[in-house]
């Protein structure tokens, strides 16, 4: 199962690499030279990686010089919690797109703290308020950064 997932990840990189190299075929040499110089080794290395993954070649030492994800929980629990975590992150992103930062921040904070964290109403409300206030003070009042209006608000305005 893991071997297939690894091979699939390598395959996605391989296909992306091939697409990137193929895209250069009509480009002028100034534009195409660099992506070709980099893209061709990328495709070759990715192909080797896919073949090695499919053959189940030993990885040698499993860990790369990098941090490692926790592997102490049962795989099904890890998979479910990972899906939930990504759903919240994507959900926050969609909320920002739809209703804009100023409204999405307290909404997301409250929803996560109550819905996922099972924190008390009082703590959730206070922390959501603190997050919104910090955002308003730092990014809006002090730095005057232009935050995009939500898509829904734009539609309603028309």
């Amino acid at each position, binding site marked *: 199962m893991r071997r297939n*997932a690894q091979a699939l990840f390598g395959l996605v990189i391989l296909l992306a690499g091939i697409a990137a190299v193929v895209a250069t075929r009509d480009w002028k040499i100034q*534009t195409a030279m660099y992506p070709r110089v980099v893209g061709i080794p990328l495709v070759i290395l990715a192909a080797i990686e896919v073949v*090695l993954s499919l053959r189940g070649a030993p990885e040698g030492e499993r860990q790369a010089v990098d*941090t490692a994800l926790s592997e102490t929980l049962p795989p099904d629990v890890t998979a479910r919690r990972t899906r939930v975590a990504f759903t919240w992150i994507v959900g926050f992103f969609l909320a920002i*797109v739809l209703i804009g930062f100023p409204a999405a921040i307290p909404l*997301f904070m409250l929803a996560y703290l109550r819905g996922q964290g099972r924190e008390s109403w009082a703590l959730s409300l206070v922390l959501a308020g603190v997050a919104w206030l910090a*955002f308003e003070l730092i*990014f809006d009042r002090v*730095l005057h950064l232009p935050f995009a209006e939500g898509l829904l608000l734009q539609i309603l305005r028309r």
Partner: protein
Amino acid sequence: MLEAFVQGLAAVLQWNAFSFMLIGVALGFWVGLLPGLGGSTTLALLLPFIYAMQPVQAFAFLLGMHSVVATTGDITSILFGIPGEGTTAASILDGHEMAKKGEAGRALGASLTASLFGALIGAFALALAIPLVRPIVLAFGSPEFFMVSILGIAAIASLSGRGPRAMLRGFLAGCLGLMFAAVGSDPQAANLRYTLGTLYLWEGLGLVPVLVGFFAIPEIVDLAVRGSAIAGAPSGRLSGVLQGVKDTMHHWWLTIRCSLVGTYIGILPGLGGAVAQWLAYAHAVQSAKDPVDRERFGKGDVRGVIGPGAANNSKEGGDLIPTVAFGIPGSSSMAILLGGFFLVGLVPGPDMLTRHLAVTYSMVWTIILANIITVGVSFLFLNRLAQLTVIRGTVLIPFLTLLIFTGSYTNNNALGDLVVTLFFGLLGYFMLRFHWPRAPLVLGLVLGKVAERYLWISTARYGLDWLGRPIVLVLIALTVLVVALPFIQEWRARDRMRRETAHAT
């Protein structure tokens, strides 16, 4: 010269210059802590405030802010696994692992001490090197700069793990990073590449949204999966801080070497702090005694904190050398600072080494004093800062997610920043899941634009003859050595083990 050195100190210690420096330091402290909000952006925001200032006051204000962002950026990287600055991402690899193990205090102690030493070494390099560095910088042309880029990627890719498979993935990740650098308009003819028909990608991928997503989203997901605080076990008060300080003292030679790496990368135009930290990390990994010792990196080895900590602060002094001496900014921050020179009526170049030498030395003193103050203040608040790692994950996660999205959005103030952050968050997660090293990808992305420009100029100017230039040949030999070294170490370790087994039987 000594007189100017003392005059520089006296000028910074005058109450108005010192006050401006303190304001700059306070700003830099928070800018470093907040992910995404970069030192160069803040430098640009501060420029309008220096119109009415004297040169020493202006540089005390600007450099006071800019020279400390990497110091406090390391704190965010270590505690939360979110790069406080683009230049502090390498500290995550071992620093955040130490925080997870309840050794946040030790990691912070080591990082802050290394940062201080790095800043001091960088500042003294600035003081000493100005008359000496000119021939070194001028000896490097486009072919040499291209080879330095290749050497950097080869170093980090070859040290990405143990064995040929890990090295394969290291080089694959490096190529992937170089490929991502091709997104946007090409530097030669300004033709668009891989922009997916969007205006947002015309200028390429922003480093901040990439780094924030790439490192922070996998950490947040992992924190959610574990369902605990960042530190698995409460560490109580930070007894490890002193140990971290001692670690840096113990690895003093590594600290000096990584500081010099940072200073030199700072001197070279176009490379900058984002490269310096990774090369210093690669150097720290390379300094491991044997493959088993190297295995400790990425799992909470204090040397992986000391190396980048020292380099990302020492590069500040190095960065200033070409800016002050030749008016050639080594990085985007220095290009903004160059604007500051003109705003206060100074012209970088020979005048800064003769008529305005005291102003130049006041910059050296600003870097030294600002870092001493920041490290001192950070040590005072370390206990409180590290207590954040024992807060329940469910409370911390929404705040961290908020920081990720606001931080990445500040890059271009566009929703595209958030999409890039999400994409690289997912990519970073899968790379971690399947044990692909992330550092080569980041270095490839950072160096890609530079490498492409220098490769094109070298080929257009010299054809293939540039491959025969003496310094290029030395750099090629170094690249081959860097790639071969892990195999040689592996072979020697196996040979030693075989001999020990034979001796035992």
